[in-house]
């Protein structure tokens, strides 16, 4: 109970910030889906012939649920890198928080709560725009909102644990280029992973992106069986939980010395 309340106060701080600054963020969260769906779904999609491999649906509808997940992962990456480092090193807001009854672990929970809420809101906006642009195959696309959020958290939490150990942001660009970018491109969002060379596929299985995309697309088109669905959810949940457990350690080490 105490932990929940203390974590909520951390969330509230972000909400206070958001109420002042939402205009700046709203542009990104609306523009991203519009640009992606227009360019890749409608523009590029007009030249893509639907195949049995992608379920015979229009390309725009094929990529829509996956794009929700990809956008969530992108947002998660930013929220779990510079924002975390700033709260430790630049603004030092975390340092101020642990001088109150709030513990380092509760600081983390509040942060994760906030990231989760933001991912959920962004994904919801994405789905609304997808519907408006005719990218929704049916009401199943709604599942992409919680599933995109879960995939985003599964990537964000371990990344928070990592960011919390750093003293300078140099390695973040490496993560953007060599982890985030390939993960966005090669995990089944734009083409089925069966088209990848065999040796690459196991690597794809390790990404939260692939599990998230499988879930989001499977629920959007109603093609997902229960057992694989549970497997994907278990993987993403485990990654989130492991990330949080690691981050609790790094937060404590950093804030309580």
């Amino acid at each position, binding site marked *: 109970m105490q932990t929940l309340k203390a974590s909520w106060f951390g969330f509230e701080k972000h909400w206070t910030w958001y109420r*002042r600054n939402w205009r700046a963020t709203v542009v990104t969260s609306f523009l991203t889906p519009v640009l992606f769906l227009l360019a890749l779904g409608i523009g590029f999609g007009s030249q893509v012939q639907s195949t049995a491999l992608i379920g015979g649906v229009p390309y725009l509808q094929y990529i829509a649920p996956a794009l929700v997940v990809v956008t969530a992962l992108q947002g998660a990456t930013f929220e779990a890198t510079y924002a975390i480092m700033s709260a430790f090193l630049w603004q030092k*807001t975390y340092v101020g928080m642990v001088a109150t009854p709030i513990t380092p672990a509760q600081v983390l929970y509040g942060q994760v709560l906030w990231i989760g809420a933001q991912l959920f809101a962004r994904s919801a906006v994405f789905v609304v725009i997808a519907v408006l642009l005719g990218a929704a195959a049916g009401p199943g696309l709604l599942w992409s909102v919680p599933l995109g959020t879960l995939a985003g958290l599964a990537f964000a939490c371990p990344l928070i644990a990592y960011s919390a150990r750093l003293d300078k942001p140099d390695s973040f660009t490496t993560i953007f280029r060599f982890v985030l970018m390939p993960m966005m491109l090669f995990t089944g969002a734009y083409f089925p992973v069966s088209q990848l060379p065999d040796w690459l596929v196991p690597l794809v299985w390790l990404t939260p992106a692939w599990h998230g995309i499988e879930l989001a697309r499977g629920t959007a088109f109603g093609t997902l069986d229960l057992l694989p669905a549970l497997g994907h959810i278990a993987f993403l949940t485990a990654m989130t939980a492991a990330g949080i457990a690691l981050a609790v350690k790094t937060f404590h080490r950093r804030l309580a*010395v």
Partner: protein
Amino acid sequence: MENLVEAKALTKHFGTFEAVRGIDVEVRRGEAFGFLGPNGAGKSSTMRMISCVSGRTGGELKVLGMDPDVDGPKIRARLGVVPQLDNLDTELTVRQNLQVYGRYFGMSRQKCREKATELLEFAQLSDRADHEVEPLSGGMKRRLTIARSLVNDPELLLLDEPTTGLDPQARHLLWDRLFRLKQDGVTLIITTHYMDEAEQLCDRLVVMDGGRIAAEGSPAELIGRYSTREVLELRFQPGAPKPDLERFAERVEVLPDRLLLYTQDGEHTLGKVHEAGVQPVQSLVRRSSLEDVFLKLTGRTLVD
């Protein structure tokens, strides 16, 4: 009298580095207590242990009668902490900083609003209430940080180098606010490497050096115990050999740029120095300060 802080043989190690090497400290309710020492003396490490943020390596520590290892959050709920480096939320307004911080202590929104208005007044920031924090001057940020630390009406206020980096005017304004808190019965613990700050604010203080306590007492006691009433400072041409003046004073300290002659009557000593034919470029008679106490105890100056 009730002790708000009791430390016995308190130590703090970072790896092989011993930041605090066994200190005994008692802070009584209602007093202003100081840790005076140069950078790296172990003051901040001690403060972090007292503020129940950083665990101790060894020894005993009681804050507000409780063990920080057991009751950290409970103790922190009754403390106010002013850190060495401001950690305000620079993207929030001045008022929001206070309100958000109040919530961390579990205060109701209504109470946070009232408290923020009251503290803005105290910190003389009412006219900046709805401005963002970032463009504020160093002194204003410092005042806001102190106001923020008071949001929970703390019984014990910990200030780590509260005026470092501020101009004289901003420092005096801050000291004035701290005096008012003292008048209101708030117990203060202050670390500083400014002797004038320690003399102005502290009822009692310890001089720290190399992780240990070198001396303890009120500023006047310490000066009486470790120094003479007056000091005669003599400056000579740079590079010129400094004359041996031991016979004119109780003690002589040789600093790179000047000589300090410890004596009961500075003017009288200066007369005798002149009689002996010694011609300093500049001479100054002043009262002894904590700086002299520190020099005597450690052989080094506080601020270099």
